[in-house]
Structures are given as C-alpha cells and as structure tokens.
C-alpha cells in the first residue's frame, strides 16, 4: 500500500512538474506580456517577497472557510436530521432549500456584505450558503436509504424511534454524509473568496482583487497558488478524519 501511495505521489509530482514546465515555456517564449502571464519564477519570487502579505491573508481565508464549514455542516446536518424525523418539516422546508439553490449565491454576495459588513461574518455566511445544500442533501439521502431489513429488525426488537436514529440510521447514513462533507470542503473556500472579492479588508480574495487592479499579476498568481494548496491540504485533512470515522468501510481509495 505504501508502495502504491509513493507511486501515486510520484505521478502527481510528474504531472505538476510537467504543467509548471509548460507554463514556464509559454511565459518565456510565448510572446505573452508578464502582466498577463507571469512565469513560475516570478510567481515564486512574489510568494517569497510578499509572504508578509500572503500569510495573514491566507490565515483570514482559512479562518472564514473553517468557520463556514463547521457552521454549514452543523446546520445542514441538523436540518437533514430534522427533515428525516419530522415529515411536516420536510414538506415545508425542502422547497425552500431547493429554492435557495436556484438563487446564485454569487449574486447574493453584495447583499451579504451589506447586511453582515466587511468583516469575517459576511464571508462565513457566504461559505455556509455554498455548502449548506450538498451537506443537507447528502445526509438526507443517506437517512432515507436505511436498509429496510434493519428497520424490520429494529421493529421486532421493540426499538424506540430515537434509538433507531442514533444507533442505526445515522451511522448508516455516514458514508453518504461524508461525501457531502468532502464536497463542502472543496467548495467552502470558493464561498469565502467570493465574499472577499466583493468587499473585504483582508483575505486571499481581497489580496487578489487589489493585486489585479494594480497589475501585480505575479502576486495574484501567488495568492491563487496559496489558495489552491490550502484547499488541497484542508480537503486531505478532512478526508483523513472521515476515513478514520468510517473505519468499518472498505477503503476503495487505496486500491489504486
């Protein structure tokens, strides 16, 4: 398994190196002005020289993302459970949840900044709005698809509703919930960054916005690279946590 993991990292490294080489070649010999496409060397330089600016910005975005994730997963999970145990709640709230997805969250961003201010709150709300639906629908699906045989068994055992929920339905829904959480982890930073884009005083989105207006394209790329690395690391951490929580699932991810 470790051999396979090494092979996987090798493949990833080779692909990344190839992409960076392609980018470097395009920047150097492609007759593209550096304010449109700075080379990898320029971006690396910007990463180092602007670290005093990038680090706190990344920290702000990370904070917003993690807060948004915690709140969004908590609220989305709670709503899914509520809808699973209470049919009237499902009938009344589910159309609203669907409707909320019909409104593009990006269009709401200026409103959210207006309501929740230029600080962290509006970005957290933005991230929550972005991840709410995948979390709720993933857990909701999981809770609806409890193995009917288990429900029969529980009924003959004289189980109470709540105990069936806690000991059978929720654990059974965890794999589905986990895929919702993985998805949420990947898209929550987008929510935070879009919020920063519209109106903020710090964060990677804010930094990109200012760099863009000043034609500091290398800094923009540097901020983008930090955001990408941060998102991947966050995803990886969440994935490890979920794999540990779902110790009983066969691990298909390690097969290849």
């Amino acid at each position, binding site marked *: 398994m470790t051999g396979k993991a090494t092979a996987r990292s090798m493949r990833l490294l080779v692909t990344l190196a190839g992409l960076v080489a392609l980018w470097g070649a395009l920047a150097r010999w492609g007759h593209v002005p550096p304010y449109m496409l700075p080379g990898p060397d320029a971006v690396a330089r910007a990463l180092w020289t602007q670290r005093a600016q990038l680090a706190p910005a990344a920290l702000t975005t990370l904070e917003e993302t993690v807060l948004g994730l915690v709140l969004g997963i908590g609220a989305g999970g709670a709503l899914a459970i509520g809808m699973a145990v209470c049919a009237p709640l499902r009938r009344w709230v589910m159309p609203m949840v669907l409707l909320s997805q019909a409104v593009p969250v990006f269009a709401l961003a200026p409103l959210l900044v207006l309501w929740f201010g230029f600080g962290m709150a509006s970005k957290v709300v933005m991230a929550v709005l972005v991840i709410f639906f995948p979390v709720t629908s993933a857990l909701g699906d999981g809770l609806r698809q409890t*193995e009917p*045989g*288990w429900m*029969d*068994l*529980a*009924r*003959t*055992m*004289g*189980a*109470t509703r709540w*105990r*069936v929920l806690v*000991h*059978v339905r929720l*654990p*059974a829904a965890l794999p589905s919930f986990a895929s919702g959480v993985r998805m949420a982890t990947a898209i929550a930073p987008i929510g935070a960054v879009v919020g920063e884009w519209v109106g903020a005083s710090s964060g990677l989105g804010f930094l990109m916005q200012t760099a863009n207006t000043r034609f500091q394209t290398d800094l923009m790329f540097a901020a983008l690279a930090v955001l990408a690395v941060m998102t991947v690391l966050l995803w990886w951490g969440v994935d490890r946590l979920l794999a540990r929580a779902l*110790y*009983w*699932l*066969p691990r298909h991810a390690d097969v290849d």
Partner: protein
Amino acid sequence: MRAPPAIHLEGVGLDFGAAPLFRNLDLCIGAGTMTVLLGASGVGKTSLLRMLGGLVAPDYGRVVAGDGLPLAGRVAWMGQQDLLLPWATAMDNVMLGARLRGDRLDRDRAGRLLDCVGLSSHAAALPATLSGGMRQRVALARVLYEDRPVVLMDEPFSALDSVTRARMQDLAGRMLAGRTVVLITHDPLEACRLADHMLLMAGHPARLDGIAVPAGAVPRAVDDAGVLAAQSVLLRMMMQ
C-alpha cells in the same frame, strides 16, 4: 423466556397491490414447534412471515396468540441477510436489541451466546472480517440474546455453502428447540431436517397444504434414511 404460545391465523387475507396474495387462510402453528414454510418465490411466504411478526397488518382476518396475549414484543426476527451492522463488533451486534430498547447491556450473556455459536474468540471482530457462516452465527446469537418465545426466520441459511448450511441447521435446531419457530426455506433437505410441521404454500391466491414430515426429533441427521427419502418426495412435489 416465557412459555411459547401457539399462533392462530383466522381468515387471514393480504393484498399485494390490487391482487390478493392470499385469502381466508386458517392455520394453527403449534406452541413450541418448528414449522417450516415452503413454496415458490413470490407466492407470499415472506409477506405471511412479516404478518406473523407484526411488520405488516393483515387486510382481512387476524393473527392471534394461543394464550390470548398480544404477539408484539414476543417475536425475534432473522432475515435472509444476516443484517449485522457493519460498524459494530460481533458482541455489539448480539446486544443490538438491548441497545435499541435502552435496556442494560448484558455483556456476560452476549459472551456466553457467542461461545455457544463457537465465536467466543471473535467477539471484537467487525462483520466484514467474518465469513458468511460466522456472520449468520452472530445473527443467530442475536436472536438468542433476544430470548423471545417466538422466532421467525426467512431463508436464514440460503446464502451459505452446503456444509456451512448443514452445520447451521444443527446449531439452530438445537438452540431454538422449545420455541415456536416458523422457518421459510427453499431447501427440501433443510425442511426435512428441521420441520415438526411442514407447509407448502402454492397458488394465486395462495393456499397452505400440510406435508408429512419424517420421524425423529429435530434436528434430524443429514444422512438419516427417513430424511433423505422425504427430501426426494418433497423435491419432486416442489418441481410440479
């Protein structure tokens, strides 16, 4: 365990969609006996069993216990799959009923039952690490932990290989003796080994017909001459 009751079906009928699955069934399932229910797929055996277990209400007639007390709370269920929770250990699966009712967990008793089914060294194992036969033995221990006077089994051993199945029949026959058991099976040998009474369910709407069973106490030996003879007769009957 309280005394096992007889179960009476009085004019029972059940519809499947618009079509009647069965109508006007009258039957007495003897207290403390093993009744085996045979029949083609889709004839309504599982629906009948679910009705006995209170999982589905009859559309007509009623199901009553011989002692006049309600059946609810006196039934243990064993399905076609082992229905073990994959995240729980063998021990926790055995005690599932207690956990779902909020009763005190009796680990000693669960341990003894795992010992009875030959799995004392696998108490902490997750179901995925056990073989099909071992999983089905955990499911049997779970039934025994419930200690209910009525046990309903829906093809519990159909997914096992024939040797493991024969062993499970011995085990189940011994461990469930004295309870009112209804067992669905497609396997004529299994029926002939385990049945005190045998019923063939056939037709649309379905009827129940009694079939003679071989002599001797349950579980009968696999090489018992009476069992083997009855098995061939039964197989021929089922092929018609």
